[in-house]
């Protein structure tokens, strides 16, 4: 197991280096930040001075080596817009991003888990149909509109919850619900079909033949097996939630890293972009590593292979 983790960690480091290399070159392709930073009437000299100050006059490859050297020390340069280190700007936003991603993830997976079990245990077909229908209908509504509807109902009409910003747990409810329920249909369908597939296995019949009850068989025997595909997909999705919550963050004015990166892109604040990409990719590979380890814990066949 330790060897496996070390191997995966090495792979993770390579992945992160690859990602920031790509981010570095892509941001350089996007255009000259000096032109954007200075007022349109700036002279050529002024522009060149700024370019020299930012190191933009060096050959691209030298710029890259300098950048990587600094990045190793954790220095991603100063933000071009606000004269603070790019990294600290990003790190300020990370808690907000994590908070939203993890809580909406918990909503999605948690609801899928509960509803999935409920669908297996109920003897009424209409309950199953209703749950499936609600989950699908929710997925059919775009995040943007669903968020606005929630704001309309809970913030404007009922005045129960704040409509924007971050601070109290109450601020978290609407964004987490918006994002979390969007993932629900996928998780639920996956979980339900893998539970249904497990039900056909002989070990389930064997457990019944030992004298176990329905709930015991479901929880002790089928669940650990049925969780495997859910863990894989949920892991990938959690990674995507970290970087891809921009729409939700925008609707609820949530100060997350995703929104910061989008803003920085439009301002060509490339140190912030690269720092942001770095942080998100690190979180992504860590989550993937956790998923792999978790897979080994859940499935002895993976561990022993």
């Amino acid at each position, binding site marked *: 197991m330790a060897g496996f983790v070390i191997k995966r960690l090495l792979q993770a480091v390579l992945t992160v280096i690859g990602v920031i290399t790509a981010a570095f070159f892509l941001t350089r392709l996007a255009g000259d930040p000096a032109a954007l930073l200075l007022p349109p009437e700036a002279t050529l000299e002024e522009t060149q001075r700024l370019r020299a100050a930012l190191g933009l006059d060096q050959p691209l490859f030298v710029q890259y080596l300098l950048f990587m050297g600094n990045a190793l020390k954790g220095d991603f340069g100063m933000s071009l817009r606000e004269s603070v280190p790019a990294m600290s700007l990003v790190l300020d936003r990370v808690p907000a991003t994590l908070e939203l991603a993890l809580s909406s993830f918990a909503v999605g997976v948690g609801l899928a888990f509960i509803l999935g079990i409920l669908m297996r245990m109920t003897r009424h077909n209409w309950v199953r149909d209703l749950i499936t229908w609600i989950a699908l209908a929710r997925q059919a509504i775009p995040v943007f509109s669903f968020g606005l509807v929630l704001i309309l109902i809970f913030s404007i009409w009922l005045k129960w919850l704040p409509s924007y910003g971050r601070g109290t747990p109450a601020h978290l409810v609407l964004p987490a619900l918006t994002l979390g329920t969007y993932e629900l249909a996928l998780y639920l369908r996956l979980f339900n079909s893998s539970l249904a597939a497990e039900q056909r296995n*002989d*070990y389930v019949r*064997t457990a*019944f033949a*030992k004298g*176990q*009850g329905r709930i015991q068989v479901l929880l002790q025997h089928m669940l650990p097996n049925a969780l495997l595909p859910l863990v894989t997909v949920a892991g990938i999705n959690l990674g995507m939630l970290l970087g891809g919550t921009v729409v939700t963050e925008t609707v609820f004015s949530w100060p997350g890293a995703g929104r910061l990166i989008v803003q920085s892109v439009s301002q060509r604040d490339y140190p912030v972009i690269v720092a942001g990409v770095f942080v998100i990719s690190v979180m992504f590979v860590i989550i993937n590593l956790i998923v792999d380890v978790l897979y080994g814990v859940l*499935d*002895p066949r993976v561990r022993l292979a």
Partner: protein
Amino acid sequence: MTDAAIAAEATPTTALDRVPVLSVHNLCIEVKTPDGERVELVRDVSFDVNEHEVLGLVGESGSGKSLTMLAVLGLLGSGLRIVSGSIRLRGQEITNLSFHEMQKIRGKAVSIIFQDPLTTLNPVLRVGKQVAEAIRLHNPDKGEAEIKARVIELLSLVGIPNPERRYSQFPNEFSGGMRQRVVIAMAMANEPDLLIADEPTTALDVTIQAQVMEVLAEVRARTGAAMVLITHDLGLVSEYADRLAVMYSGRIVEQAPSAELFASPRHPYTAGLIASLPQLERKVETLYSIPGFVPDPRKRPTGCAFAPRCAIANGRPLCLSQSPDLESIGANRAVACHYSAETAAWSTAYQAKLENVATETPLPVRKQGDGTTVLRASNLSKVFTVRGKGLQRSKLYALRNVSFDLKAGKTLGIVGESGSGKSTLARVLLRLAEAGGGEVYLNGSPLFSLRGRELRQRRRDLQVVFQDPYSSLDPRMKIHDVIAEPLRIAGSYSAERVNQLLEHVGLTAAAGQRRSPEFSGGQRQRIAIARSLALNPDVLILDEAVSALDVSIQAQIINLLKKLQQDLGLTYVFISHDLSVVRHICDEIAVMYLGRVIEYASTEAVFSTPAHPYTRGLLAAIPRIGMWPHGKGLLARGDLPNPMKPPSGCAFRTRCPMATALCAENEPVLSDHAETSHLSACHFALA
């Protein structure tokens, strides 16, 4: 010692003994299909199982045998229900019990062993825990330590070495045979009155089957449990069951003590099944095969369900109009046939016909090839590199120096347990896998150096039929197109050729317009054979081609293969684990063990004077009708060794009853004995 004898010796008769352990009366089970139709799957089934007794429940797939026993456990699937009848366990009616009430009975009074030990155990739970669960459920007052001690006791009872260490391992660390032992330990945990064994050894190799049946007999002897042995294997029930019930299309058609049933079957279906079974003791040119196939339960014929396939019904009005009741004939016997008295005459006549063929006329001479070698393998080897932990790599020698020489029109049988390299050999011969060394010559020219177009041309002469006709045919293609595909690729398509091929395998041209899901397993295998014949190959590789089929269908396909060989002068490589079938169809046999050929001789020589102890072990392990007890001292012991770490010297020595120090040092070479063409690789061959 028979079970009856054990019973008589071990237990004094008590009042309880006279109450049957299980008593099923007029049981009817029906299924509600998605379109609301009700179909009876089990019809009016009645039988008793007495203390210490083994009842064999025999029938082909779809006969209702497993359903009947699932009903006893109260585990019928959704859509299935008991319509009428009664099931009593020790006199207690259980059909009216709720699922919850049945929980106290399941695993306590009755337990079950399913067919496939690979899926019966939960892959993510430790083995000890799974056995412990069975104990804990019915003994809530037992402490953890007590339960663990009992689990270890059970594991050693079923012959699992190192039970303490095995306790905390996962199922995938066990071999198939060892897993089935765990399943038996689980089933015996609460010493049930009745054990249901549903095809308990069908998924296992024959040597392992013998070991597992042995364990079952031992644990039953200890606890005195009665058993219902559900199987399609007539040899197996003949050895292990005291009494048999034969099921056909949802009904019991015959019940009798085992020995009597095999000596004088009274139902024509039973007689037909016995006649269609290839046997080790005799080789016949054509097996009897029951014509047609088991009817769809939705379209059962009126009258006797077996009438359309029956050898004695001859379309008599009574058979066609009235379903016969199961009527008692003499003590302990019952049969459901209007003309059961005629079955004996049919059997005798059939036997006489066989003997006439065997003694008076020599077997019809096959359309012989000219005796030239069609397929020659020379020193084939194949090594797989298997990734271990970290950077570890180990080598698996799947084939080691495999050579054979196959003459035109002959059949070579390749036999061995799973893991012996049979299927790798097939893949290498077909060049679906590249050999690590050696060469294959097809009609004298080497095959391995061919590339691209040349290879594709030559491949047409070498075709294959796989085991599973359900996955080897594309369900979305019309049968006509399935068979036409190779012809179209070769540019020689014509509709007449496809129809001719269909006719060769006993199907009509009209069948070509349907798709494979509409056909039964046997029909699908016919289609697969037709497809393989499309390009007029010289050699057919039959990789377990009849193993997945029911007995009566298997006989049909074997006969078809033999007829095609005669008509078309085909040469076969017949890969199988079933020695009785191999004996029936093959001219020569190569026995493989851990990638090597350890015996290679004519079929007659292998069966009459097996030279290698492994071959003798295989032969001894085959259950056969009326042959109990057989030479159990010859049985191969234990499991196949880890092929990645084969034993030094002779690979078989770890399981060999004759092994000495010499065997650990020198690996015997494959050589002849007494200047015959009988090759074997053993220091003590023919000893």
